[in-house]
C-alpha cells in the first residue's frame, strides 16, 4: 500500500447516495445525490423510495466523484462502504456496488460503521484526531455521545437517545409549525427571529434521578409532545402561534441538553476535544452554544463544514483511508450489512 492510499467510499444508509474519494488524509471528491425531495410529501424518509433512488444514482455518482477527483477507478487502492447502521434496503445497494468495484478492480474492501465515519470525516477537514476525542453525533437518525480513543478500532458509546433522534424532533416540530420537511434548516431560520426563553420547554433526562441513570442519554419525544400541546392550546384558544418564539424555544431546549451533556462527558472523561457531527451539526444555534460552552470549559471544538456533517461518501472514504493507514485487516468479500450495527463495531 502507498503512504497515501487512494480510497473511494460509498454511503447509502439513508436517503443520500454519497461517493467520496480521499488520498491519505486529503479530500479529493465528495459527490452526493439526495432523494430528499421525493420524501418531502410523505413527511419523512420512505425506505423503498430511498432504495430505488440509490440504485439509479449509484453509477452516476461514482462517475462524478472520479471526475471531480481527477482519478480513474483503476488508480484506487481500496474501497470502503457503510455496512450499518441504517435502512436495510438502502445499505444493500451501497454494499453491493462497493463489492462490485472491489471484485472488478481487485482491491480490498472495508465495511465500516456509519457513526464512526461521521467522526473520521473531520480528519480530512481539520487534521488528525486527538486520541481520545469526544464526539456528539446528532442527525435525523442518531443522537449519540461517543468516546473515541481510536476511530479505526475503539469507539465507545457513552449514551444515545432513548426515543426520537434530535433531527427527528426538528422534523416533527417543523410539521406542527407548518414548516417544510426536512425541518432542521427551517426551524433554525424561523428561530433566528424568535426569543429562545419565550417558552420554557422541558429538558429531557436532566433531572437528578435521570442524571444518575441516564447520565449521557437523550430523550426528545417528551419535548416534541410538549411543543405540539403548547401549539394546539393556542389554536384552540383562537390565538396566533408565535412560530419564531416556539422554534427558538424548542431549539434552545434541544441544543442546551446536547451541549451540556457533551461537555459533562468531556469533563468526567478528561477529554479536551469535542467533535460535533451529523446533520444537526449544521444548526447555527448548536454551533454557537457549543462554541460558547467549549470556550468556557477549555475544550477545543471541532465541527466539519455542513456538507461534511450531513451524510456523505467522503466520511466513509476518510475512515477507509484510516483503516489502510493503520494496517487494519480488510473485510471479507462476503461481508453482510447490519441495519442496527452497534457503534462499537467500527469495521465488519
Amino acid at each position: 500500500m502507498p503512504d497515501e492510499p487512494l480510497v473511494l467510499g460509498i454511503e447509502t444508509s439513508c436517503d443520500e447516495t454519497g461517493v467520496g474519494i480521499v488520498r491519505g488524509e486529503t479530500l479529493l471528491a465528495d459527490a452526493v445525490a439526495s432523494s430528499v425531495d421525493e420524501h418531502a410529501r410523505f413527511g419523512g424518509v420512505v425506505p423503498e423510495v430511498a432504495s430505488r433512488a440509490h440504485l439509479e444514482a449509484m453509477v452516476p455518482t461514482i462517475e462524478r466523484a472520479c471526475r471531480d477527483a481527477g482519478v480513474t477507478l483503476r488508480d484506487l487502492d481500496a474501497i470502503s462502504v457503510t455496512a450499518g447502521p441504517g435502512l436495510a434496503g438502502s445499505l444493500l445497494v451501497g454494499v453491493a456496488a462497493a463489492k462490485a468495484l472491489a471484485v472488478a478492480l481487485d482491491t480490498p474492501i472495508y465495511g465500516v460503521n456509519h457513526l464512526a465515519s461521521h467522526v473520521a470525516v473531520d480528519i480530512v477537514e481539520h487534521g488528525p484526531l486527538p486520541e481520545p476525542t469526544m464526539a456528539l453525533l446528532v442527525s435525523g437518525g442518531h443522537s449519540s455521545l461517543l468516546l473515541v480513543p481510536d476511530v479505526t478500532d475503539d469507539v465507545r458509546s457513552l449514551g444515545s437517545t432513548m426515543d426520537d433522534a434530535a433531527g427527528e424532533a426538528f422534523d416533527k416540530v417543523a410539521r406542527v409549525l407548518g414548516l417544510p420537511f426536512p425541518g432542521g434548516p427551517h426551524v433554525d431560520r424561523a428561530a433566528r427571529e424568535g426569543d429562545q426563553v419565550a417558552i420554557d420547554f422541558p429538558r429531557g433526562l436532566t433531572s437528578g434521578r435521570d442524571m444518575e441513570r441516564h447520565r449521557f442519554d437523550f430523550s426528545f419525544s417528551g419535548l416534541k409532545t410538549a411543543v405540539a400541546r403548547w401549539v394546539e392550546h393556542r389554536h384552540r384558544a383562537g390565538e396566533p402561534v408565535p412560530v419564531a418564539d416556539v422554534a427558538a424555544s424548542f431549539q434552545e431546549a434541544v441544543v442546551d441538553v446536547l451541549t451540556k451533556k457533551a461537555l459533562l462527558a468531556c469533563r468526567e472523561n478528561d477529554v479536551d476535544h469535542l467533535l460535533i457531527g451529523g446533520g444537526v451539526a449544521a444548526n447555527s444555534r448548536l454551533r454557537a452554544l457549543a462554541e460558547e460552552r467549549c470556550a468556557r470549559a477549555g475544550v477545543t471544538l471541532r465541527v466539519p463544514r455542513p456538507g461534511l456533517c450531513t451524510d456523505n461518501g467522503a466520511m466513509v472514504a476518510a475512515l477507509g483511508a484510516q483503516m489502510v493507514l493503520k494496517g487494519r485487516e480488510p473485510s471479507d468479500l462476503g461481508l453482510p450489512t447490519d441495519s442496527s450495527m452497534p457503534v462499537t463495531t467500527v469495521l465488519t
Partner: protein
Amino acid sequence: MLLLAIDTSTTAITVALHDGDGVVAEETTLDARAHAEHLAPEVQHALAAAGARPADVTDVVVGIGPGPFTGLRVGIVTGRTFAFAIDVPVRGLCSLDALAHAAWLRGHRGDLLVATDARRKEVYAAHHLLDEGAATRVAGPVVDKAMNLPDDWRAMPTVGRGPVLYPEALPHPFTSPVPPPVEVLRGQMRPANTSTGGEAGEPPLLDVSAGALADLAVRRLAADAEFDGLEPLYLRRPDVAPAAPTKSTLG
C-alpha cells in the same frame, strides 16, 4: 467474448460466464435473504473457475426482474457497477424470459407459464410461446394472485416457484421432456432434440439460472436482437401514503 450474467430476481443468487461457445463457469446459491453476501464472492469464484481476470469480461447482462425488490437491486447494481468499473457494456433482460429460455433449452415447445414468487401471496407471471426458434414472451410480466391469472395461463405447464407455492391455482408444474444437455459447462447449450412429453425426472425449473440467462443473451447478441433496458421491473409502487394530518395531543 466473455459475457458475465447475473440474476438475483428469485431465490437463486446466480452468476455465469459464457465465452460465446458455451457457459464456462456457473455459481449459484439458494438464499432468498442474503443476496448481497453471496453475489460478489460468486462472481469472484466464477472468474477463478474460468481462469479469467475481471478485465477479461467483455459484456455484462443482468436479470432485471420482476422479483422481490431488495434482492433484485443487488444484482442490478452489481452488474451496472462492475461493467462501469471495467468499461464494458451492460444490458438487461427480463428474468422471466431467462426461465422460459431454460425450458426451451430443455426442449419444451408450445405454451409456457412462468410464475415466480412475488411474496405477499402473489406471483410474477408471464406467458411465453416456445417454437423451434426461441421462447417469445406473449404477455406479461404481471403481478397478481396466482388464482387471478387467466384460466388458459393456469392450464399451461408452469416454471418457477409458483406451482410449489400455489399448487391449487397452478396445478401443472413443468417437467423436463428429456434430460437437459450434459455439457452445460462446456460447449454450447443446445436445445434437446425431442418433442414435449418425454420422460420426466429432471429437477424442476424453480429459479433463474444465470447459465440460461447468459445463453439467451449470447443468442440475442448474435442475432442483433433487442434487450430490455436496465431499469428494474418493479411492477409495484412503493408502499407509502402522504403524511396524515397531525393528531391531537390534547386528547
